[in-house]
């Protein structure tokens, strides 16, 4: 079954401007009608992966792209991250749609989302 990369996520200071940019450039469709107000991005293709855009504060971090990997058990994967020398940024959280998500840093300091689908 593997542990596939299922989604990209862009962290943006101005998500509205960013999604407007990609909508104009690539025709990506954005929908934020969900309990997290999460801007899901549909690339409009049955190839590749879809994504999302998440806001960051004006003074924190910097805009970047993260990959989300689907795992069988997000808590177990997070525990393994520490054993392997990575770091936990956001411990496992349950999203309103039932998915579970954690954000970690790999050994290079790159952030990575670990996702467990609700069912």
């Amino acid at each position, binding site marked *: 079954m593997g542990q596939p990369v299922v989604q990209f996520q862009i962290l943006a200071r101005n998500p509205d401007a960013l999604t407007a940019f990609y909508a104009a450039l690539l025709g990506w469709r954005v929908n934020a009608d969900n309990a997290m*107000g999460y801007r899901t991005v549909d690339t409009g293709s049955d190839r590749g992966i879809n994504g999302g855009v*998440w806001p960051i504060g004006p003074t924190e*971090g910097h805009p970047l792209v993260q990959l989300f990997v689907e795992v069988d058990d997000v808590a177990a994967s997070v525990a393994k991250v520490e054993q392997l020398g990575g770091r*936990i*940024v956001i411990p496992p*959280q349950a999203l*309103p749609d*039932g998915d579970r998500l954690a954000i970690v840093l790999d050994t290079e*300091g790159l952030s990575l989302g670990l996702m467990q689908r609700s069912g």
Partner: protein
Amino acid sequence: MKAHVLTDPTPAPRRFSQFLQEELAMRCARNPRYSLRAFARYLKLDHSTLSQLLRGRRRFTARTVERIGARLSLTPAVITQYVELERTSPESWAARELRQLSRDASRSLAEWHHPAILELTRLTSFRPDVRWIARVLDVSVDEVNVAVTRLARMGLLDMQSRTTWIDKAGNAEARIDGESVHAVSAFAGRARAIAGSSGGRPAHYSATTVAVASLTSQRIAERVAQFRREIGEMLESMDAERDHVYRLELAFFPVADLTPTES
């Protein structure tokens, strides 16, 4: 599970600024009133100097490391190690991470909607839906999500299940006293101005955001009125010559609009 960035088990070497950021973060975690200014006072440094040192905008001199290290009771060997590291090592991603944590701590205390979000989770009517949170607090969905990210990153908010979010912070408090602004909420602008111009005279501002039952809120309002009357009576009963004018402001008001909406 807590965010383990709060208790970094990574051994030395690390730069002196990282060590100080960790120390500040730990103090902030232990005491919600603690601030960069308080830390600077303790270290006998100007707060803007400390801020620049922590942000990497100013380099530590050997003498500064020695002085701060001694103040924090580091051994001479450890101080010497930090002096050497300051000469050589580049900033690591761990340092950036710790700096972010320290920024999270100060923002989570300073921006009023952070504690308000945590308090909303205590309500029976709470909905784990940022659109609802944004509406009742009259802030944007993005502001809620930036705050939720910070709170989760700090281990102050646990989104435990699709229906349950847990406030792990306890009762956070924003306070200004003396010339120091510990944390500033949206209500505190006036108090901040006063604290900044009080000429060294004692000033005190404190605020807390709490979830309450309607019945309790009436009782608190009565206690606030009673307290104000007691202060007035105490002043009237004192014979000492009056030589200053202070204003005592007590406010107790809702920050969330929980009026049901038509759906």
